[in-house]
């Protein structure tokens, strides 16, 4: 491969950016509500729960989509270390997208808080009523969220590194919305 880096499929790009917005909103809502005693608290909590479940559903759809529309290969120019880092960080991002909301659902279950999606629409508890288990999962939920934000920061920095310094087409493979990438289509 010399010039162009293949792009992610359109469904992959749509789901990536949709989830990017949702997850960033979710992390901000999470730290915001955990620090709040104002009227914002009840509003943020009522968004946090259904949004978390939406992310859980979307990550499953995303995983299936990844099977149907595999991501483009990484550029050959990547060193083995960077290649490993890219693969590992993406595996970790998937794990966090799946585990963080699941731990949230589990901790609410262990505390026997109702898991309200909207109005009378509830999810059942998935764990027994157990305070020690709740305390553990509540702590874990926070740690996962902080780790998630840190990893997103690294992901963001790495994307910019690819786009601004390596200029290897990796950023454009997800961030470009142009209809095509081939130079023949660029009007002169």
């Amino acid at each position: 491969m010399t010039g162009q880096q293949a792009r992610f499929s359109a469904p992959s790009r749509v789901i990536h950016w949709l989830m990017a917005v949702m997850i960033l909103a979710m992390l901000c809502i999470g730290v915001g509500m955990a620090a709040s005693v104002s009227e914002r608290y009840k509003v943020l909590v009522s968004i946090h729960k259904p949004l978390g479940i939406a992310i859980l559903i979307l990550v499953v759809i995303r995983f299936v989509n990844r099977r149907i529309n595999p991501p483009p290969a990484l550029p050959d120019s990547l060193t083995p270390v960077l290649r490993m880092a890219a693969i590992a960080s993406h595996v970790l991002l998937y794990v966090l997208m799946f585990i963080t909301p699941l731990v949230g659902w589990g901790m609410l279950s262990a505390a026997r808080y109702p898991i309200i999606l909207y109005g009378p629409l509830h999810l059942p508890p998935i764990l027994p009523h157990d305070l020690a288990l709740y305390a553990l999962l509540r702590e874990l939920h926070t740690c996962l969220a902080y780790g998630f934000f840190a990893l997103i920061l690294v992901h963001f920095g790495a994307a910019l590194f690819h786009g601004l310094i390596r200029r290897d087409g990796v950023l454009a493979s997800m961030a470009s919305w142009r209809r095509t990438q081939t130079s023949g289509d660029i009007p002169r």
Partner: protein
Amino acid sequence: MPEDRSRDGPAAKGALTSGDVLLRLGAIGAAMLLAAVAFAYVGGWLSPGRLTQDRMAAALQEANGIHPGFRLNHAKGLCASGWFDSNGQASALSKAAVFEPGRMPLVGRFSLAGGMPFQTDAPGTVRALALRLTPRGAEEWRIAALNIPVFIVNSAQGFYDQTVASAPDPATGKPDPARMKAFLAAHPEAVKAFALIKDRPISTGFANSTFNGLNAFRFVSAAGASVPIRWSLVPAQAFVAESTAQSAPTDTNYLFSGLIAQVTEHPLQWRLLVTVGQPGDPTDDATLPWPSDRTQIDAGTVTIDQVSSEATGTCTDINYDPLVLPSGIESSDDPILSARSAVYARSFTLRAGEQREKPPSAITPQDVPARGRL
């Protein structure tokens, strides 16, 4: 037209100078830092003055001492269980399943205000009853009510200020009168509320206390009509005024001991009265009473037939969060509700992680004689 230089791919562009690389690395670093700072701001780490759950919890611990495993407020309590018989009369105003005619189990908790789990029972201490009603296969309702006619403050900041002002002075072991004076000067609503609270009739015990929900909620009917409401638990047990003889007891748990003795004799009952507000009645300020001529609906009867120590009762594992509401009951614009929900959640999380360090509650299982069961 010049060639499009923005295209990606090494073939399309020239090499970066080391100065370019440094500049771009700096820009990337700055973008990452900006994102991290924004996140820290949202989380309150950059605003030492913001009233957060941590600061509220710290203020309560400062005022009451640190008691691992206990609630930050209403730390001294006794679990109770029984049932609620809904008579269906509130179902016209609220579509909540708890108001459909029928019986549902409940887990309750009697407690005294304050974060001291071993405080001596005293007549003037605010008494509370919390309930979790669980209709079969439908949404639960959690409520917490106090034996005072209005709440003391009308904002989260007010509650924080009151907590800080009532913290004991390390020198005297008592609240500093100057700080309390400053608090009252800053919170005129509390001055009026304290006057109403002081005037309340105080009964001999938990069993003949009226417990008021204080904060306004909204009932939503099946047709979608929403009305502001407040509710009270009015005892079937006759009111008897607290006497000075009783309030100088030898038993430091005389209120709880009295309750245990009464429940052992016969089940205790309270009527759930729903007061319907009119337009203009304050819903965002629990220090203001509503006019006494408002329509009241008798929604049903709470029966408590058993009490148990926190060591064996199931109330210990419940956070009586006032915003755990079924559809048909909604939060009002009262800021205290959101503050209570937030601080209760923090308190619950703290004590959940401290269960192993928790000493026995003031009321132990030995204090509660087992009732004969069939």
